[in-house]
């Protein structure tokens, strides 16, 4: 009986605590008062968020933070990066340590509905794939029955792998590793015949870590959906809307052909009503979001549009060497689709 009382008291305290953080509906004001956006990023993942030896952050996830800072504060450099481990990321967002979480996080039901956060959109469509040595002669993931597969433990990758093999009634022999480097060494050392992780990771591993990239092939099947996107705390609809429309602005500007090169010229001269609306020449969209009129102009002029961000961080000229693929605009047969900015 006493125990129940204690439990109730503890729950009440916890609830007060949580409601306290939910009551912070004014993330925008906090960010503007602080004059800096606190952005949760990965500790180090090539192409997505990585700090160079001088402490400068780059990457696709980092550029989303920069775009958000440009929209809210007018300066893409006013970001405080908080590198977060996979375990700490959601608590850090819930507790207000960071204003936005942009850390290659897969959008799933559990996370969206159960963690007190909102995903604002998708910045990168990833999916899990397989890489095998070319001399294995395998051309499809469906031929992998009985093969030893190197995989990192504790990730959705491991679960997807088991799902795929069970669904296709194939025999799975996983070789599980704790660390990324160990699993790579095992694969290249011949401990297993197959390596599996996200497609973006496979491409980088093939081009950078393999002695000779031609010796390895990435199988065409993508066995899981990994839509990666930023997320914000629940309970602040205004901030949610801003974060969402910054993501759309990146895509919409690419669709309209606005780049960091031509944005000044287009703002002066363009007759296209869509361009004028996005760049704040006409209309009062920014007021509705609580931002300055040149929010999207600041984004594109300082960070670039989605296409530029993609090519700069993960595109064909980078170590990751990724094609646009499903991440192309919907007009080019991809999945990147912005809700109309009007």
């Amino acid at each position, binding site marked *: 009986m006493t125990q129940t009382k204690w439990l109730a008291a503890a729950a009440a305290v916890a609830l007060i605590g949580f409601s*306290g953080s939910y009551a912070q509906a004014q993330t925008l004001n906090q960010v503007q008062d602080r004059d800096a956006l606190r952005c949760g990023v990965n500790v*180090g993942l090539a192409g997505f968020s*990585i700090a160079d030896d001088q402490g400068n952050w780059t990457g696709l996830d980092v550029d989303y933070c920069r775009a958000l800072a440009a929209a809210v504060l007018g300066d893409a450099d006013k970001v405080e990066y908080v*590198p977060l481990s996979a375990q*700490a990321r959601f608590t850090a967002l819930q507790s207000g340590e960071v204003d936005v979480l942009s850390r290659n996080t897969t959008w799933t039901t559990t996370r969206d509905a159960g963690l007190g956060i909102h995903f604002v959109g998708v910045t990168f469509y990833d999916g899990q794939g397989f890489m095998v040595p070319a001399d294995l002669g395998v051309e499809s993931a469906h031929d992998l029955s009985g093969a030893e597969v190197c995989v990192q433990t504790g990730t959705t990758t491991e679960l997807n792998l088991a799902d795929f093999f069970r669904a296709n009634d194939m025999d799975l022999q996983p070789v599980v590793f704790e660390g990324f480097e160990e699993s790579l060494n095992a694969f290249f050392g011949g401990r297993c015949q197959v390596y599996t992780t996200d497609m973006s990771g496979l491409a980088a591993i093939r081009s950078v870590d393999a*002695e000779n990239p031609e010796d390895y092939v990435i199988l065409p099947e993508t066995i899981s959906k990994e839509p990666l996107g930023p997320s914000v705390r629940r309970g602040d609809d205004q901030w949610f809307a801003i974060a969402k429309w910054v993501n759309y602005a990146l895509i919409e500007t690419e669709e309209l052909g606005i780049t960091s090169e031509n944005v000044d010229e287009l703002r002066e001269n363009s007759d296209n009503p869509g361009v004028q609306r996005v760049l704040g020449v006409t209309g009062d969209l920014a007021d509705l979001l609580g931002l300055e009129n040149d929010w999207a102009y600041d984004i594109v002029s300082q960070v670039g549009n989605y296409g530029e961000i993609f090519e700069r961080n993960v595109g064909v000229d980078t170590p990751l060497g990724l094609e646009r693929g499903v991440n192309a605009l919907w007009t080019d047969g991809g999945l990147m689709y912005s809700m109309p900015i009007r």
Partner: protein
Amino acid sequence: MSFVANDYKPEQPPPRKESGALGWARANLFNSWFNTALTLLALYFLIETVPPLIRWLFIDAVWGLVGPDVCREADGACWSFIRLKYRQILFGTYPFDQQWRPLIAMILIVSVALLSCIRRFWQPWMVGVWIATLFIYITLLGGGVFGLRPVRTELWGGLPLTLMLAFVGIAVAFPISVLLALGRRSDMPIIKAICVGYIELIRGVPLITLLFMASFMLPLFMPSGVSIDAVLRAQVAIIVFVSSYLAEVIRGGLQALPKGQYEAAHTLGLSYWQMQRKIILPQALTISIPPIVNTYLGLFKDTSLVAIISLTDLLLATRQSFADPEWRRFFVEAYIFVALIYWVFCYYMSKYSQYLERVLNTGHKR
């Protein structure tokens, strides 16, 4: 006619087989078939491992300042990676152009630590020196005064952060733990209950949990807008954790003292604190030196757990340095480099504790 020898026989050298290197080897390495087998096996492993290791570490290694392509061609270690990235490993995310500040701060704190190892400096004013040092250390890192650019504590990283967490942890946890140990052995029931409760509660929880609670749960319960600095929270969590362990170590020392020491002190009419300060603690702490240093070594390495709450300590800074895909295959070199740093500090602490035991051992050799 006499059968008694009048002079000594001249001394003969011991048989060749029994003396010198050969004799030593026979006596120690080949004295039975089992030991002979072990010796040969060990020799085989040494021959198999040591020369390739030396070749990898030194002879075939790349020492010049070159790109990853050159390193990939080489058979040996790529020390070029360390030469390129050592500042990122040592200072983490600290602003690049300001890294002279943590460098000076580290030199300062290490010199003060070395000075306080000398017995001549064991004076009360050393406490003042330490407080001043820590103040300067934090000012240098944090800036904001004397024209130093302010640097957020989240950006503090690498070795300066590790050193700060360890040194402050050691310095602050020690007095707390002495009080806790005394409190646990106290006759006063409330004080005893508080101390026992604290020690058992904290000791029953992993450090990682404490750090996690301090970093992510605590802000959930705070009114909005109020926040405690992240490094401070981690520091407090470490102090809280270590002091509970240390308290038990010191309690062990207290219990090792014969009851006669207490009774003698009482007979002399000493007050409780006089007795503790002059009779009990000096002996109890001397006995506990090995386990205390054990705890400190553990603490020094446990500071790497702050990586879980997004503080860029030495180890996380190292991991970040090879997150770059061009360089990530050289992670072994990076780990060797930080292992060396950790080892230097830990080995020194361990050596110093042995010295302390010798110096403080006043006739209680057991």
